[in-house]
């Protein structure tokens, strides 16, 4: 029954699960970064709105850790009004800067990531031989939301909810659902249970009405 339910052009459930879970592990092992998308969407947005801040941040992430440490130390000393020599003791090994730089990703990288997901989706469709330009989401969507402007309005409204909701919750399917739940993070478990339940409830509601 479960295996018979495989939708032909797509991976069956266990291959899909292995692929996505494997990708999350690989990214952690190689990048020391958990898988997540909505944060990068937000970074991309901020990068588009404030390119100058992104450039400064880019320089900081790519700065020499020792240099960054010295700069942070000097700024702290100035803020506290003490000579910088008094700041350097046994405990002022440059630990702050590498810790800051590790796992941080520049806005440019966030934008590249977002763009790369688009390209990856295209490659996936090409691989299945199903790449084509389509202007609608199919008859099921049309039955619920119509076509043309009403459909676009529904997508716009739904999209706003997705963007607003994921930022409010601090994560989405990947950040909370995959990366957070697999580490038993309480916020992620609650978030995932809630958005999945809300999506199911909304789907049943829409079908009941339609």
């Amino acid at each position, binding site marked *: 029954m479960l295996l018979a339910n495989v939708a032909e052009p*797509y*991976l069956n*459930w266990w291959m899909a*699960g292995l692929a*996505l*879970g494997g*990708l999350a592990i*690989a990214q952690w092992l*190689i*990048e020391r970064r958990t898988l*997540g*998308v*909505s*944060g990068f*969407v937000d970074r991309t947005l901020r990068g588009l709105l404030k390119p100058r801040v992104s450039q400064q941040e880019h320089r900081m992430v790519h700065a020499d850790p020792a240099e960054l440490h010295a700069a942070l130390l000097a700024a702290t000393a100035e803020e506290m009004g003490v000579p910088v020599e008094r700041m350097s003791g046994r405990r002022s090994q440059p630990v702050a800067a590498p810790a800051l730089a590790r796992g941080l990703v520049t806005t*440019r*990288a966030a934008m*590249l*990531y977002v*763009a*790369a*997901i*688009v390209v*990856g*989706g*295209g490659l*996936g469709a090409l691989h299945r031989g199903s*790449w084509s*330009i389509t202007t609608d989401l*199919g008859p099921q969507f049309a039955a619920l939301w119509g076509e043309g402007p009403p459909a676009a309005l*529904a997508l*716009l*409204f739904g*999209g706003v*909810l*997705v*963007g*607003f*909701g*994921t*930022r*409010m*919750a*601090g*994560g*989405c*399917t*990947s*950040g*909370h659902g*995959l990366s957070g739940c*697999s580490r038993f993070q*309480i916020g992620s478990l609650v*978030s995932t249970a809630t*958005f*999945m*339940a809300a*999506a199911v409830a*909304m*789907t049943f509601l829409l079908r009941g009405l339609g």
Partner: protein
Amino acid sequence: MRRDLRVAAFGLALGYVLSWMGFGDYDEVIAMFALQSPRLWLAFALSVVVAGIGFRYQHTSAPRRPLHKGIVPGSILFGVGWAITGVCPGSALTQLGEGQLPALVSLFGTFLGAWLYGVVHKRYFRWDPGSCAM
């Protein structure tokens, strides 16, 4: 630069996998939410288990995800939006790559929503929403 390219390589892989899973297919996603097909539920659950095993053996300094006030209301809004559009942020990007032009509207909405949240948060809320990926 090399780091940036590595980040992009993972984005490429994610888009490819999401597409191959059928996560960018409105009908597949709705079949999941309408409880008509267990395929994507099982796939998602298995991916969490697989990642969980990986994390168990790699004890992590990954960011914690505590409860905060935005979790439940934010997740409800996200879930409703997902059921309407058929997309989460990752699969909206995947759809666009697959040539599904309606994703442009969903994505525009997603960016608009994220921007709106930034404005509303600054003005009214005081908690730290954390981040999906820092």
